[in-house]
């Protein structure tokens, strides 16, 4: 935890990562306050206002059903951030628990868990997620479940590697000698020491999870209309891209900014945590 605090302190010297952090914080605020910030109901269909260009009444224009794109993007922030956070929490917790078990107990348990991780890593993540969502029926829950299923092995591998080196250290030996239970050793002594890499990986993966969710939404295997999901909104505008460019463009820009913010923040955290880069 002290390591994490020092990293956050170092982050203050990195303007790009700070910018990333700012955009991330802003997105979370927008997601939380969506009902107060959105000028219109994101689901309200209004045929007389179809495909209005950006203007004073509709800041970012309207889509093919006359819905206000600005309001839909604001609500879409909620969907994307929620998907990202649940996916990362779900996969990081599952992966960490399995990685702790594999690294600490070794032997057969390690072998089974890591071979299982290898199987999931034998597919490109997005392709496996596509197969899962197609099989489960595309939906918000399906997207979250599919993306969590494909993301956990990274955490299991990461944690297992760290546990292997930590469990040989003197303080673990000492804890064992004082008769502490294995449960207590794993959760009170080992887990706090593997938290930093998990946090960094999680930040980098948040951007990836949001991108993957929007890709699933775009191809029709993710969150289903009329829910204002950015990828599905960009897909809605496909047929109008030439003359009503705003329908696809603004959702695309929203994804771009949020994903870039998480990438900048994750890169900054990684650089700050890497001792070789820290002193350069």
């Amino acid at each position: 935890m002290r390591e994490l605090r020092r990293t956050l302190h170092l982050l203050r010297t990195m303007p790009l990562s700070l910018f990333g952090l700012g955009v991330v914080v802003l997105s979370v605020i927008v997601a939380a306050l969506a009902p107060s910030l959105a000028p219109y109901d994101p689901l309200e269909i209004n045929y007389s206002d179809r495909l209005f260009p950006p203007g004073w009444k509709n800041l970012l224009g309207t889509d093919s059903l006359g819905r206000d794109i600005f309001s839909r993007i604001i609500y879409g922030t909620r969907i994307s951030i929620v998907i990202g956070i649940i996916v990362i929490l779900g996969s990081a917790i599952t992966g960490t628990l399995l990685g702790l078990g594999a690294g600490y107990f070794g032997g057969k348990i390690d072998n089974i868990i890591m071979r299982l991780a290898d199987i999931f890593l034998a597919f490109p993540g997005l392709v496996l997620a596509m197969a899962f969502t197609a099989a489960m029926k595309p939906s918000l829950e399906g997207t979250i479940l599919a993306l969590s299923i494909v993301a956990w092995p990274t955490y299991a591998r990461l944690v297992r590697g760290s546990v292997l080196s930590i469990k040989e250290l003197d303080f673990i030996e000492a804890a064992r000698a004082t008769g502490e239970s294995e449960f207590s050793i794993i959760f009170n002594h080992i887990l706090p020491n593997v938290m930093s890499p998990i946090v960094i990986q999680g930040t980098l993966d948040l951007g990836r999870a949001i991108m993957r969710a929007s890709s699933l939404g775009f191809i029709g295997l993710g969150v289903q209309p009329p829910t204002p999901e950015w990828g599905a909104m960009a897909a809605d505008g496909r047929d109008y891209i030439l003359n009503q460019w705003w329908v696809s463009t603004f959702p695309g820009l929203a994804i771009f900014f949020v994903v870039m913010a998480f990438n900048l923040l994750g890169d900054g955290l990684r650089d700050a945590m890497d001792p070789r880069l820290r002193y350069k």
Partner: protein
Amino acid sequence: MRLHEYIARRLAMTIPTLLGLTLLTFVISHMVPANPAFLYLGERATPEMLAEFNRAWGLDQPLYIQFIRFVIGFFQGDFGTSTWTRHPVLEDLVRYFPATLELTAGALAVAMIFGVLFGVISAVKRNTVIDYVVRAVSLIGASMPVYWLALVAMSIVYLRLGLVSPGRLSSTISPPSHVTGLYLIDSLLTLNMTSFADAFVHLILPSTILASWIIAPVVRQTRAAMIDSLAQDYTLAAKAKGLPERVVVWKHALRNALIPTVTVIGITFGGLLAGSVITETVFYWPGIGSYMLHSTFQVDFAAMVGGTAVIGILYTLINLVVDLLYGAIDPRIRYG
């Protein structure tokens, strides 16, 4: 460890992965909510027809028997029959695969050429405006949704400027005689230069867009490795000998910096396969990705499962090749 021992060990490690891959594919195929018999026979099927179908396809057998049959079929290339095209899935995949291969190979070429070029320039001009611009562009590329970039590029190049039409060839050009299914290679083999030029022009935009999916890590890796390599004794010695800067950078330093870059390209290939699914749908590119998606929307899951399995196998084999290459290039890996 000798090289052949390393190869044997690495090959042996691939077998459980492939078996696991079949297990996961089997699980996915059994998660499908719809009854395959209904999908194949239609909603009006009688109970007798359903029972007959289940018997014929072994669906009345216990699960473990079904799995064993699935594994045997899998390794014989039997992924079932598509209810949409009514062809064996393998036959369809073989037909659609060359288009995907051509697209990903094109993207790989673009990513390697420009990724390495920009990485080297960025390292040589470290901390100058050029370096910042290259890094900013690669960061933007990494954060841009590939489908959106594809949409925008297509609307400008295809629709607004009317330079090319979607797909692999113009409607007025007939495909070259089938040899490999890869239009570029086939038109060269049959000396059909008109279709070669047309296929090449059609490939440029989709493969460039797909390359944007992986170009950022290639630039980043090349830049880091080049900065390292430029500070090494052998580079300084080459400089001290009075060799021109061009030779030192592109011959001495780059050659050593390329090893980690090759690995990154191997690792990102999986991303390329995933990205191709998305790119194909936007560009109406008739590859495996388009086929899988179209079948899924026709409630035909055999194609999705078969396609996923084939992509998984391909991905596993590419990782194997990259590992073997890496082991051959760098002896430290073998002994590690």
